[in-house]
């Protein structure tokens, strides 16, 4: 298919710099990482983004995104 080159920006995801498409939503970022939004909690620049809003929030260069879930613990 024909497509113009997607411009990317760099964001920090779980402390690591990663390229994401410019203006991607958080939902699209999760999808690109292969993550099920029902099993992940998203913090965007220190603010929690609730699941229903993930498709509304767009990332910008330099954003800090934390993706957390439950692991074994006592």
């Amino acid at each position: 298919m024909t497509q113009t080159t997607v411009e990317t920006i760099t964001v920090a995801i779980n402390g690591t710099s990663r390229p994401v498409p410019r203006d991607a939503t958080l939902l699209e970022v999760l999808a690109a990482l292969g993550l099920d939004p029902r099993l992940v909690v998203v913090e965007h620049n220190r603010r929690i983004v609730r699941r229903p809003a993930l498709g509304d929030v767009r990332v910008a260069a330099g954003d800090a995104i934390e993706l957390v879930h439950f692991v074994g613990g006592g």
Partner: protein
Amino acid sequence: MTTAVTAVRDVPLTVGGRTFASRLMVGTGKYRDNATMVRAIEASGAEIVTVAVRRVDLDRTREEGVLYHLDPRRFFLLANTAGCYSADDAIRYARLAREAGFNEFIKLEVIGDQETLLPDVQGLLEATRVLVREGFKVMAYTNEDLVTALRLEEAGAAAVMPLASPIGSGLGLLNPFPVRTIKRRLSVPVVVDAGVGTASDACLTMEQGVDGILMNTALAAARDPVTMAHAMRLAVDAGRAAFLAGRMPRREVAVPSSPTEGMLD
């Protein structure tokens, strides 16, 4: 037939307005594999199961989230703030945990010292106040200090969780006296968290009259975690029953159990 279990008259454990089937709560950390963890949790009879909040591994080199192995409809997931060394960090983790969408309970840990993992009680009180205001049901991991326990209750904690001995130490209930004092003085449930090593530790702890026990390493680090979980279930029930039964007074001299009359000349 009356079984030993039906002979015990007890009320169920209620924390933060919610009633639970078991007084034994278990963690999900440090198991050698997930299948063993699931079988141990089942053998323990626990309903409350603790989990930690951590970054998703984006490279998938580590184990996936615990929810792939544990049915959240079957167990009550109690998220912790383990690894947090300040009130702010613990508050941040608690908010993330609640956003996972299971419940508003949090096992609040604010650690003050890396070697002993003893709580920073000042940070703990601060985080408790903030989280209670935000509607959390706070179960606060603390030390055996009565005054801190009283302050946590005043701050609105749903349960106070004094340690038996340091986290992961397996040293058992080092000092029953302050734990008993905390239980006597507080109205909210007192759940001993951390330090239990084997079944007798759990039994002795429950005999002090506390409302429950939370343990992780005692099961995960046992040679056979599933059998140890079974033992812990029995020990918690036995200790609870013994507490309810009321033990005989201790005496420093012998008192014969058989009649002293009717002996032959």
